[in-house]
């Protein structure tokens, strides 16, 4: 991958200012949304556009002002009348190094001191410190992760510095700046070795921040982070608004439970016959109780509320969206958009004498549509036992006409390694969970989520795939082992010279 800089995502920004200033504020939540690449927020395409620049200055200004009560600890100064400049220099050294995730150079110090003086001139020491904080939080040293090495180029390759590796590793695995332990490993050279990096990945993966980051990776993999912005027609799905947040919570709790109690492989994520739900969501699922519950009719993430609701229309199910999501996200199969094929899209018109499945089956009859829809629809139709918010059903209801029985049986016959007949989406999910093609796709997706090269990553994916292929079988599908494989590799520590 090329030597590069990558702007912090909004979530990484929040985690970084929280660690730096000890605040609980999360101003990034109100920033313009992150640009996504392949669905992932961690990518090199993030920019600072005028709206964000304004938001960053407002945020930095507010955070710096709010930090004033803690200047005594953050920027102590025994005598501001005589030694203010020395105190400021000392603060700049300690604070700047933590904010930039690397030691300061002379230019850094000089420009920060000039900023201090601009703030303190005609005002106070504290005013100067406040302005330094406001500036640091908008500096490229803080806002961008740099992967550019120390300027030494060998055979067109640069080796990342220990501090860069520490930052890359920390943000990849925990979404936060390095902790003291990791900085110590950077300082003592441990991160120069694959084994040293592996130990740190394994340590950080088990931390609370590591768990939160794993949840984020899984959510972005399936696109189910969008559950928080999913809406349903309240006249059709009256209960949805009340359980939407519970569905987001279910993903969080489920992923953590998988990582704590199983090998944490894609087979576990997609094939678990249990889930973790609130009592309100359990009621929607026709389950009794709350917490971890057996759910043999609701196998894995694909049969949980977040996936079924995100890939559902506001007023009816969306077999096509569900099928396409599995093809694209789970199978890494790039299905063409119909418009690229000059196929006119005609959404099936409402017809209360037909089920959704019967209406959407029209695709298979049109030769222009059938080629793709024969791949999409058999996957999507198997979920028809769940309505558009994931509630179990045997009948499809209509407003002014009799209910009709739903059909969730399906036959997969596309040359996949899970071809076969299935009675329901849970049977299908159990088979998908064991697919080696799906496992290979999962490794590709995890690489994308961490490598941050976004739409440019195809070539690097092949390099990663080659080394992934050498892993022992029991590691190939495990989230942690895939991340370890990346962190140990040259892809992680070497960059093409600028």
């Amino acid at each position, binding site marked *: 991958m*090329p*030597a*590069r*800089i990558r702007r912090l995502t909004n979530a990484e920004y929040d985690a970084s200012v929280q660690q730096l200033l000890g605040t609980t504020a999360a101003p990034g939540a109100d920033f*313009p*949304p992150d*640009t*996504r690449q392949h669905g992932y927020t961690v990518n090199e*395409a993030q*920019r*600072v*556009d*005028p*709206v*964000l*620049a*304004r938001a960053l*200055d407002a945020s*930095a200004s507010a955070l710096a002002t709010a930090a004033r009560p803690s200047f005594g600890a953050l920027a102590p100064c025994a005598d501001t009348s005589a030694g203010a400049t020395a105190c400021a220099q000392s603060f700049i050294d300690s604070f700047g190094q933590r904010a930039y995730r690397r030691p300061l150079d002379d*230019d*850094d110090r000089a*420009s*920060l001191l*000039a*900023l201090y003086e*601009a*703030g303190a*001139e*005609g005002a106070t020491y504290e005013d100067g410190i406040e*302005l330094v904080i*406001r*500036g640091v939080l*908008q*500096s*490229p*040293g803080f806002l*961008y992760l*740099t992967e*550019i090495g120390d300027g030494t180029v060998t055979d067109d390759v640069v080796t990342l510095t220990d501090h860069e590796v520490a930052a890359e590793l920390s943000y990849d695995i925990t979404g936060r700046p390095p902790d003291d332990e990791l900085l110590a490993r950077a300082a003592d050279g441990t991160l120069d070795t694959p084994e040293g990096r592996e130990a740190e990945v394994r340590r950080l993966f088990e931390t609370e921040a590591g768990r939160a980051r794993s949840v984020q990776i899984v959510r972005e993999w399936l696109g189910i982070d969008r559950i928080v*912005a*999913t*809406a349903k*027609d*309240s*006249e*059709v799905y009256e209960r949805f608004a009340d359980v939407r947040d519970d569905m987001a919570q279910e993903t969080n709790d489920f992923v953590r439970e998988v990582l704590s109690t199983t090998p944490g492989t894609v087979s576990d994520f997609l094939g678990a016959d249990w889930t973790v739900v609130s009592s309100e969501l359990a009621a929607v699922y026709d389950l009794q109780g709350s917490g971890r519950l057996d759910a043999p009719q609701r196998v894995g993430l694909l049969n949980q509320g977040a996936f079924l609701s995100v890939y559902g229309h*506001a*007023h009816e199910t969306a077999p096509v969206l569900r099928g396409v999501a599995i093809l694209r996200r789970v199978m890494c199969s790039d299905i063409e*958009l*119909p*418009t690229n094929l000059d196929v*006119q*899209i*005609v*959404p099936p*018109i409402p017809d209360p004498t037909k089920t959704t499945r019967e209406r959407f089956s029209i695709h298979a009859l049109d030769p222009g549509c059938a080629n793709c829809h024969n791949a999409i629809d058999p996957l999507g139709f198997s979920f028809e036992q769940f309505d558009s918010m994931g509630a179990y059903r045997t009948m499809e209801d209509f407003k002014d006409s009799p209910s009709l029985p739903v059909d969730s049986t399906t036959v997969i016959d596309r040359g996949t390694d899970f071809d076969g007949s299935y009675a329901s989406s849970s049977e299908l999910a159990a088979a998908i969970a064991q697919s080696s093609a799906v496992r290979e796709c999962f490794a590709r997706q995890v690489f994308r989520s961490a490598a941050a090269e976004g*739409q*440019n990553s195809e070539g690097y994916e092949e390099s990663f795939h080659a080394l992934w292929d050498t892993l022992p079988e029991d590691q190939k599908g495990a989230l942690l082992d895939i991340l370890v494989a990346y962190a140990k590799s040259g892809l992680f520590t070497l960059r093409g*010279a*600028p």
Partner: protein
Amino acid sequence: MTSRSPSRLSSLARPVSTMLPRYALARRSFLKSLGSGLVALPFVDMLADSVARAADDQPLKFIGIYHPHGVAAEHWVMRDTDTETAFDLSFENCSLAPFDDAATYGKSYKDKIIAIEGIELLSSANGHETAATILTGSRVSGKPSNLSLDQYLAVTLGLGADTRVASAALAIGTDGAEPGATLSYGEGGAPLPKIIDPVKAFDLFFAGFVVGNDPEAIAAAARQRALGNSVIDFVNGDINRLRGKVGPREQQKLDQHLTSLRELEKQFTEMTSSAACTVPTKPNPAQFPSIKAYNGGEPYYDVITDLMVDILAQAMACDITRFSTLYLADLSYAGNPLGLPADNHGGVAHPYSASPIGNDGHPGGPGDPATWLPLAQINRYNYGKIARLMQRLDEFGALESTLIYASSDMGNPALHSTRNVPTLLAGGAGGKFQMGRRLKMPADCPDTDIWCSFDSPNFNGAPNNKLLVSIAQAFGAEIDTFGTQPNPADTTGTLAGLV
């Protein structure tokens, strides 16, 4: 490797490399900056009741507007008795009626619009992603390939450089960056974020302007400006040092960052304009407890839209900005004032069953008139907001010097068709276009091939690229092509019959 490489397809006429900002790297003296300006007066006087009045030489302003759910053509297209310059907007359920409704909007704006039939959005994408094509004229694959017209005019041509805000992107309800929800794009089709909170829109245009006549407040404001400039100088210096250590792709990121800082810097610059200008009342957030779609924002869309319209009109009139986009929303909530189904998309747009007038030549029956009316109501509602914008601009003396371009992403929404998209120009357009007309483009496909694809030799449609070229030329741009399409004929030339 670099995202700036020119497209293989036909692209903007202006070489992309000339669009890069160039920076004088000299750093301002902090102390000089701090010491000056302490006694200068703010340019806005809140007590003044005067408003900016149109001068003959007012610079031309542009507002690009999106409205959702296509069009009920039956209530929109020209009637048999209409001519180009003599037409009726007052027939029953005409969705363009707000432009001839003096009782509601103060006067008739019939002579300040051009409604154009038969425009095609060549997105080659699902109708829902086609909002991205409206101002880019680009095919859409995840994103468009080139920047949008507002950015071309404001940034590339530099027509926004002299104003406090070079360009603004406002929206109702959705702050997402997906192509279906974004009108404004930077270089390479990078989506630009939108402001959906009326308070933030107010702050963008007017924050820091009003300091009254209190000397202490004036001094404090001057210090705030000086501190802001010091921070910008500092960040500028750091970015330029980093810029020297990275390759071209990364330099492009930093160049954009520098451009953004220049925009931010305007916030800390005193306005030197002599125009008098009334600052609108800051919106009260209690009027809209929630602003985001799907998080309970919908009940407040109507009030949010009105606030955005009023703030935008005043900002334009004050010459705080000359370029803006406005992304309108529907009214998808139970109990909406139009009495429509809570799900406008599923309950109004999809069931639309067109007559031959609205079905793009698709063979079919007479359609279902009961499905036309709800969609026409949505169209009329959105046109009402555009009429309100015109009314406000008119009150502030800025309508004559403004050009509004409004479009939906689709024509027939049940087909998700990007053909025959409802297209409206509005405002005085600085006299560049003869307003007060209805235009109808020739049929896009011959009767023998009514579904002809955009790439077919039979295709004779009017891509909106030509409209974008016409608008760009009205702003003085010396280009004759805009957008990214495989066939250069689609991107080249002005819209026939417009001028």
